[in-house]
């Protein structure tokens, strides 16, 4: 995207809109009285989300301030749970600042422009889009795993049926939850507004008689265990500062795989015994560049995490028949799938009682 395109108001009607009538300098600062670019741009704030949106959108802005999209609380909670010290100036805090901070967003970077991390630039003139662009906002950040799965970009793996058959964009399912619940949470699954399959597919729960597999498994299996297909898993990730003083990271090539394991987030609302697990890009020495043993309790959390792959299908290899899954060791996370240094961390999610073959 050319520089001029990033700031081009292609639709002059914007000035007649509610946001347009507020006036440029009210939010962006600068000096609108001067036609000289340099003078007009003195004090300009390109992304004025902070401290402006909340003037009119108090409730949403307040909730959003502590949402995972803004606070990066998801990263923070994992690092702290693993014994990390994130006090200001600590080696881990410096690593966090260098490698994690870039992944947060602001009101404007979802509703007006592309995220800074993707180079920025207005999405559609200065239009305030209530629903962010799937292409330029959601997938711009969530493209490596979720976006690729949803659109069917992983070779040989079909896209999600919600996309291929229904053309549903992200916001069709993910709406208010994206602004957070107004409470500080550690993972998106703790958000009471998080999207659930049953929000749309209530009939699956109320009419199990027509489907013996549902009748048998609804309580024990997360929906994705039967209805998602192979997805991306990332292994190892090391962060450091390179010879030029720039933050860098390395990771091993990702692998497309499908693994069922024990539920690491078992609760009253997620009571399934079996769920789909994804290996996330981490390892015990991820931050060793910044100091030794910065995550002394690394094994407190698994590296194979509760996952909700976005490649849902009605029919999948594992739901073809009972024995497509029962007795099919390859589908389950076992000790053979876990590296020795991560065995302890994953001991609670490794499956030890693979369901036996059923008599047909």
């Amino acid at each position, binding site marked *: 995207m050319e520089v*001029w395109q990033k700031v081009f108001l292609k639709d002059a009607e914007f000035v007649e809109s509610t946001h347009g009538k507020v006036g*440029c300098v*009210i939010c962006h600062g600068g000096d*609108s009285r001067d036609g000289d670019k340099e003078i007009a741009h003195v004090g300009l704030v390109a992304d004025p989300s902070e401290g402006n949106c909340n003037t009119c959108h108090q409730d949403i802005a307040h909730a959003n301030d502590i949402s995972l999209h803004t606070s990066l609380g998801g990263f923070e909670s994992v690092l702290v749970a693993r014994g990390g010290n994130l006090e200001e100036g600590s080696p881990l805090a410096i690593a966090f600042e260098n490698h994690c901070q870039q992944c947060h967003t602001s009101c404007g970077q979802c509703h007006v422009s592309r995220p800074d991390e993707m180079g920025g630039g207005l999405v559609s003139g200065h239009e305030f889009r209530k629903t962010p662009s799937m292409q330029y906002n959601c997938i711009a950040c969530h493209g490596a795993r979720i976006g690729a799965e949803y659109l069917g970009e992983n070779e040989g793996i079909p896209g999600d049926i919600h996309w291929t058959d229904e053309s549903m964009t992200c916001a069709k399912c993910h709406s208010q939850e994206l602004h957070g619940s107004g409470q500080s949470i550690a993972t998106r699954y703790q958000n009471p507004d998080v999207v659930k399959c049953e929000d749309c597919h209530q009939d699956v729960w109320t009419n199990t008689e027509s489907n013996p597999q549902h009748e048998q498994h609804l309580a024990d299996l997360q929906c994705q265990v039967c209805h998602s297909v192979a997805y991306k898993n990332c292994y190892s990730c090391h962060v450091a500062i*390179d010879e*030029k003083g720039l933050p860098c990271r*390395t990771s091993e090539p*990702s692998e497309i795989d499908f693994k069922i394991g024990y539920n690491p987030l078992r609760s009253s609302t997620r009571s399934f015994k079996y769920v789909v697990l994804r290996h996330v890009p981490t390892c015990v020495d991820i931050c060793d560049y910044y100091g030794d043993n910065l995550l002394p309790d690394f094994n407190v959390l698994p590296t194979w995490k509760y996952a909700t792959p976005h490649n849902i299908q009605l029919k999948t290899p594992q739901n073809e028949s009972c024995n497509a899954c029962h007795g099919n060791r390859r589908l389950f996370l076992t000790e053979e799938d876990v590296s020795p240094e991560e065995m302890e961390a994953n001991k609670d999610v490794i499956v030890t009682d693979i369901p036996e073959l059923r008599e047909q």
Partner: protein
Amino acid sequence: MQMKRIIFLAIGVLILVSLVAAGCAKQEPTGLTLGEGEEVVSSCVTCHSDKATLKEVATQEPEVEKSEATSGEG
């Protein structure tokens, strides 16, 4: 009587001319007024909705240098 007609006609022509002149004058962007003295539409919109001007005055953004040592997927 004749003189009166000429004066009225002259006044009429004058009013007509001034109205036409005002209509043809180049309009400066006056903008919408939000409150006392607050200019809403301004040179910001004038420039940012003019593709040619933007292309002309655009300066290359300082390139954010990214490490060449980074490898693998994000």
